[in-house]
């Protein structure tokens, strides 16, 4: 479990980090909590030659009430998201979902920005922020830009971030008392979800996203459309996998995964409708 040789630089600000990453190009990677990148490096599946450590960029760790949304700094640790009173009040679905990430050690090291930038379809937080209609703020050499969560995930571990861009903030709309549910189905408590569902409902509106049901986190638009047209929870849930292209793995066949998505979406909507 020894990674290939790499160089290491620590950035003290976002600007410095971006300037370093621009300097070293494609072979460089940002290192935040390290809980996605380091395991890949240890298995030598990832072999970046330069790591730009942004772990001590302090001004990127925050959770702020910004009126209609909550602004979360990209380096905020999962544990801080989970325990945040602001999020518990205004975006309880996200705080709750953060409590399902890995185990306590992972939640104390891993960051919400790292998880989203890694763009893992099996991540709990990519799908949750997608369901919530979050906006991600990226910063590059030419300043900041906003990317809607639904436009962010481009493929397996691929995001809309340019190589010299860094995710700096996650803006999550307040839930305004919407009913919600997070369903994570796995075999062991600390595993990635075999299938997960993040869902909320508020009057006619809803958001449903699926964990690990394709190469990216999946917005189950067909479910929300059906609900908007007045479909029952059970009928809407039957459309759970319409927008998904699930893969088979050791834990689930495509057929089983599809079935699970329907069951879990139904259960999520039942809970969100209470």
């Amino acid at each position: 479990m020894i990674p290939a040789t790499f160089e290491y630089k620590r950035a003290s600000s976002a600007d410095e980090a971006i300037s370093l990453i621009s300097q070293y190009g494609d072979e460089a990677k940002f290192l935040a909590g390290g809980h996605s990148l380091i395991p890949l490096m240890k298995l030598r599946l990832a072999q970046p030659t330069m790591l730009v450590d942004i772990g001590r960029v302090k001004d990127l760790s925050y959770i702020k009430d910004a009126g209609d949304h909550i602004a979360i700094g990209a380096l905020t640790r999962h544990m801080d998201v989970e325990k945040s009173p602001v999020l518990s009040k205004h975006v309880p679905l996200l705080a709750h979902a953060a409590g399902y990430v890995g185990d306590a050690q992972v939640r104390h090291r891993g960051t919400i920005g790292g998880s989203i930038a890694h763009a893992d379809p099996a991540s709990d937080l990519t799908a949750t922020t997608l369901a919530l209609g979050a906006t991600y703020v990226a910063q590059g050499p030419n300043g900041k830009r906003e990317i809607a969560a639904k436009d962010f995930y481009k493929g397996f571990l691929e995001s809309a971030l340019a190589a010299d861009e860094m995710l700096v903030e996650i803006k999550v709309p307040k839930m305004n008392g919407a009913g919600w549910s997070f369903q994570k189905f796995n075999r062991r408590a600390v595993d990635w979800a075999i299938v997960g569902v993040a869902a909320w409902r508020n009057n006619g509106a809803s958001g449903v996203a699926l964990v690990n049901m394709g190469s990216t986190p999946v917005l189950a638009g067909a479910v929300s459309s059906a609900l908007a047209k007045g479909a029952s929870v059970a009928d809407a849930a039957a459309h759970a996998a319409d927008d998904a292209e699930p893969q088979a793995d050791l834990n689930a066949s495509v057929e089983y995964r599809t079935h699970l998505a329907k069951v879990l979406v139904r259960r999520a909507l039942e809970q969100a409708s209470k």
Partner: protein
Amino acid sequence: MSITQERANSIIGQRMLRREDPALLTGEAKFTNDLVLPGALHLAVLRSPYAHARIKSINVSDALAMPGVVAVYTGKDLRDAWAAPMPCAWPVTPDMKNPAHFPLALDKVCYVGDGVVAVLANSETESRDALDAIDVVYEPLQAITDLEVALSDKTIIHEDLGTNKSYTWNLKVEATEGAVDEAFKNAAFTVRERYVQQRLIPMAMEPRAVAAVPQPFGGDITLYSATQVPHILKVMTAITLGIPEHQVRVVAPAVGGGFGSKLDVYAEELLCVALARKHGAPVRWVEERSENTQATIHGRGQIQFVELAADKDGKLTAVRVRLIGDMGAYLQLVTPGVPLLGAFLYAGVYDLPLAYDFSCTSVFTTMTPTDAYRGAGRPEATYAIEVAMDALARKMKVDPYELRKRNYIKKEQFPYTAFSGLTYDSGDHLAAAEKAMSHADYAAVRKKQATQNVAGARKRLGIGMTSYFEMCGLAPSRVLASLNYGAGGWESATVRVLPTSKVQVVTGTSPHGQGHETSWAMIASEKLGIPPEDIDVLHSDTAIAPLGLDTYGSRSLAVGGVAIAGACDKVIDKARLIAAHQLECAAEDLEFVQGTFSVKGSPDKAVPIAAIAFAAFTAHNLPDGVEPNLEAQYTHDPKNFSWPFGTHICILEIDTETGKIEVLKYIAVDDCGNQINPLIVEGQVHGGVVQGIAQALYEEAVYDSDGNLKTSNLAEYLVPAACDVPPITTDFTVTPSPTNQLGVKGVGEAGTIGSASTVMNAVLDALSGLGVTKLDMPASPNNVWKAIQAAQGGN
């Protein structure tokens, strides 16, 4: 009555905290990889990415040019380093096929993970980096991962053997010829089942680690290894490398678990020794976790065909078993013997007439070699008979406990000579089962089940049980001889009372988590009347404890602990002669109670063992013919295996929509005879039960059809964590073994032996109402859901 009640003043039976734990918990314990060895070279092994391939060429020139690289060796470079191939100590039949197996492959690789090239470098990182610079050209050949395909010999893995079949071993016992066939013909009920014992990957907390250090004095070489078997390793290292045995010293420092996987002689141990001698420098190696999944042995790996015949009351009249054993690519130390360890247990705890027909054929495949894994053959056997008993109960429409009660060997039948000729020393199956049933509140749970498991129920309740026998305390040497095993089964102990009355207990067992230092001190304390804190236990170093056969097969207490008691007896006998001399009485007039000799009837005429120890040391006034010093060595060769037993019960719920299983309650009632330290006993049961639950619900080494291991890390290979296992209720009955003076039986494997079948019986109990009566392990949610779908006619 528990042992603590029985002997209120006794050390034995107390819940003493383990003396090993402070060092382990604070990180002070020194494991092999913690040893500081200045100037050591680091070994890394390039492993085959192919399951089966011919090596066409190997180019190491780029690797040799890498920074820090000292040497690079191929299998051919080192061919002359080996005086003999790697050892298999258990040629189970005279015609068993055993391919020559060397630490590095010569012309062919036969599994993913097979060692191909060894690199020595100045650091671990440099040796690892150099592996990426080695160019090996392979000609891939057909992988064989299916046992039945292997048997067909369409592709032969070891061409010189001419077949993939290693051996066929039979155990047929009939009162009269044809008794088994006759019983099946006349049976009121029969079942025929096929079970798959999936391969499991042992996951010791500490992966393997080795350091070989040439000695400036006191012998040629010291081999430090994370091993369960320093004594066996010493002999085998000497033989394999052609080094005189007295010049090899093997030390097992703190060892972090083994479960059988460190009961072996591995390529890396031999490579480190060979290269340390060649380079005149220490050579060390530590296993990566993903290497551990490929290059350390796997466990289980059997297909079982089990047939039971029963009369109209469900009384068993015959058992027939056909096994296919997956040896993997090569035979490791005891690989071929594993199915034999189960061969005697396919009638379980039941009173079977002489109508037993067992046959095992073992085959080579292109997968990691298998070998002993906690329970070794016995969990597999117990699974087969116990899951088949439930199948029989379903067929007969009787309660599975009722069926077992009709078949248990009864208390008054012990000692019981089984069909196999083995004698079960003692037991009371009904008592253990009744106790378990009472913890489970069996009747109430059955009642709840009847209400809950209605058509359309989302969650179905299941109750499963197992009553087991664990053949352990390996082993009587004469019995091992009859099984063609290449060594004995004795264990040695030396007890040395030092001049100041402190004690050294030297044991041939080699603990790697079992707490022997605590338990052995308790035994010696009980015998000698000296406080346990004054007793040191020395072990796992062949220079300090030269005689021993190490730790595996639930043998350490039942053989090694009994040896300590025997050595204490010899010490006391000698001390008695000296005491009699001092007290001017006859030796037989002395009694020895709590560390003091006194004349029977005159308690004031007494001398403590401390005084005797000093007198033995000064030797100023010893009786004629008595040698100075108070020390004795004793070797215990058990008269019989020991036969722990018990009943386990599992209560679980299955979500029929998702197939997910939640174990609600797990009850283990075990009888391991007298208990030395109940705290350690409970810990052993907990760990064993979790390993069995893991086999039933989580773990499986998955290979694809090209022979790639898909579960080669801990994200894919699902070892359950503490939060994934249910609360476990442990309770005990105590039926002392009559075959050793401590009345002990051993408990290392009991939990594992009883648990996988218990869980699977509960799973099938929950699902049989839906028509699911067969399910392979692990009962993953996907597998359970698929089985329900299939039974319900799809959709």
